């Protein structure tokens, strides 16, 4: 059966809004964030994110795993981009060299060299802040949105009944998939299977992952067939549906939506006027000179 995310009612800023209003604001926030490459703009949006996170009432211990996973992922890729020098080249045309570190060995005649430029540093830092803002705002949603309201939230945003209920099931499918994965991993470990010891090329690795991938996939398919049967047996989709839960916009929700729309409008305006492009602070350029 489908399990839900670790939601609980909390006295927090995010939960004080209608979920539809929050989703609209969230979408505006995401769109604004991806418009800018200027670190100063990203810093302002990051402050907004941190206010939301710190007032969310979710303890760090509750979100620890999600943070470690996403944090590790973001930092790894920012570092990788920084080290390889790939990415961001479309944002700047010239680079100001700060330092060049060459390895004292060669691999097949190639000497690994790390070129540190003012642009690369700022690109990595801006990227880090930007992705962290997006990820943080996203992590909060499953912890703060009442699972009983998933369906009506999407319905309230204008999706048809069937699609809204489908979104409700999809939201709950993700944690259920995680639980099934853990159960399968445990069942196979009890048969002497050691995930840690898998070696070999790509195909060999995928083949050796079959004991995990196959049961989890089949289980997901069988569960969805069960869900369809259970829905059919209780007359789902035979006509317009009543949604038992009701959501009502209050003044604060309208204000939040207005703020979201203002934010995206303002961001688009700035962007069209040429503001918010990639920015390198003067002191880094000075260091390069």
């Amino acid at each position, binding site marked *: 059966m489908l399990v839900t995310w670790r939601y609980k009612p909390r006295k927090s800023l995010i939960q004080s809004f209608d979920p539809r209003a929050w989703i609209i604001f969230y979408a505006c926030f995401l769109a604004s964030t991806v418009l800018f490459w200027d670190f100063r703009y990203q810093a302002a949006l990051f402050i907004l994110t941190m206010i939301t996170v710190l007032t969310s009432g979710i303890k760090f211990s509750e979100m620890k795993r999600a943070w470690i996973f996403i944090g590790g992922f973001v930092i790894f890729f920012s570092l990788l981009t920084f080290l390889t020098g790939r990415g961001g080249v479309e944002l700047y045309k010239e680079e100001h060299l700060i330092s060049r570190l060459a390895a004292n060995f060669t691999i097949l005649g190639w000497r690994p060299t790390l070129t540190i430029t003012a642009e690369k540093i700022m690109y990595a830092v801006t990227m880090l802040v930007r992705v962290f803002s997006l990820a943080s705002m996203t992590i909060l949603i499953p912890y703060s949105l009442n699972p009983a309201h998933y369906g009506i939230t999407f319905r309230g945003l204008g999706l048809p009944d069937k699609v809204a209920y489908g979104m409700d099931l999809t939201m709950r499918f993700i944690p259920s998939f995680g639980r099934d994965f853990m159960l399968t991993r*445990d069942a196979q470990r*009890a*048969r002497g299977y050691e995930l840690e010891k898998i070696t070999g090329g790509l195909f060999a690795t995928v083949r050796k992952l079959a004991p995990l991938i196959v049961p989890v996939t089949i289980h997901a398919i069988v569960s969805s067939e069960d869900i369809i049967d259970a829905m059919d047996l209780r007359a789902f989709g035979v006509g317009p549906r009543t949604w038992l839960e009701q959501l009502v916009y209050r003044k604060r929700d309208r204000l939040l939506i207005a703020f979201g729309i203002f934010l995206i409008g303002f961001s688009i305006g700035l962007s069209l006027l040429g503001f918010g492009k990639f920015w390198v602070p003067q002191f880094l350029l000075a260091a390069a000179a």
Partner: protein
Amino acid sequence: MTAISPLIVEGLSFRYRSRELPAIQDINLSIEPAQIVLLAGASGCGKTTLIRCINGLIPRSYKGDVSGRVWLQGQEVKDLSLARISQLVGTVLQDPERQILGSVVMNEVAFGLENLGWERAAIRQAVDETLARLNISHLRDRQTHSLSGGEKQKVALAGVLAMRPNILVLDEPLASLDPASAQEALDLVRTLADEGMTVLMVEHRVEDVLRIQPERVLFMQDGRIRFDGRPEVMQKNVDYHEVKLPAAMILAAARADAPPSEINPLPAAAQDAPLAPLVQFKDVTFGYESGLEVLHGVDLQINRGDVIAVLGPNGAGKTTLIKHAIGLLKPTSGQVLVNGRDTHQLSVAEIASTLGYVFQSPSHMLFAPTVREELAFGPTNLKHSPQVIGEEVSQAVEIVNLVGFEETPPLSMSFGQQKRVSIAAILAMRSRILVMDEPTAGQDYKNYMAFMNSILQLPTFEAILFITHDIDLAVIYANRVWMVNQGQVVADGVPQEVLRDQERLRTNRLVPTSLLQANLDYFPMTQKFYSAEGLAHRIPAGD
């Protein structure tokens, strides 16, 4: 045809598109209102197919060749919309986990009425009335995935009853329930029937259902109805090897048959050997990340020669306890020793060669293209030689009665067969200790009795432990019973001691069975617990 009958089936046959043989053949049935009709039979006899024809899933969701007709309240099923059928027939599936859709109890119970487009106020009223009727109003705002097995079953039933069907169809509703929850569910069904609802209940735990005095019993075999009549006369017509009858009926019938062969459990443990415990729990405490403590200071030992039945209510901590023995969970404080070594220092794979663990659900482990490869997976991981693996696989296949299925893909098999494959997969590893989590759930009586008999007598195991809700399994097979409740082992001893105390059974949500009672009655004479067939040949004929 009489229009007043809530359910009439005439000459019904059905063959699934993917199968060669029909699943049911020439079924004729007419059910009176306000009756409980018990439909019994081994797995694969066509019970579930018949239900699907009644609730409209055949032919809407399952395609194949249908002939014959089904009428509900005088209206032919094929002419009705699914919405209309769902108001006439409410179906509760075997596993409530497969039926519950809502994330919160309130939404789950309201789901059908929402789909029918009722007014909100009317839905709320119907939900509250239904919850009150089932005595579960307190669950209204709970998240469904946090409910216990018994609570889930009641919530699934509430979701169906809220739509006010005339006929209630229950497909093995007791499978995942502890005995006390099962009894509560059955009492509820009796009340519903007394209030005017027609109930068709599929169940092979016949003894349990007979307690609520069904008006009629149907017995199916090979897709056909073989017996249709009053429960009192079923003894002569129903094979006591196929469904679980009350002990008194088996005692009467089995005397005429040859006595069953004596079970000689764990031959390997009978040899001289060191007396060190195989597994030892020392003051084990365990809590999940959420801070909830599940086990509190458990001290236990598994010794050579032990056949342990672990009994206790849903959510008592039985599975958590056993997962410590294989190292899938490590104690928060205290120690678990396997072969004298702390599980903190061992990987699960290392422990697996000593202790084989059969998980509750087979669908979480089956992956290989054939049964043979599935069974070879464990021994291969344990680095057994190919020749030995061949022997291990053949023997395991034989024990679970799947000879001839070696090249079949496990994923294409029925649930009962998959469960047996999952047991065989662990048997093939030839570990010293076998641990099974609800080995009989979803299995029919005949099959599970056969494989329990074989497993107990395997020459390889030194100890066997199984978690179960079935007291009779403890009576017949165990030489030791652990009773677990609220994260503690509240009783540990021989079955005749632990199971004698009625008050203890009641507080641990167990209900004495007729077999337990018969064994306790004759214990001064037998000095041992037996199956009903075994007991029949050990007590005087006049008794």
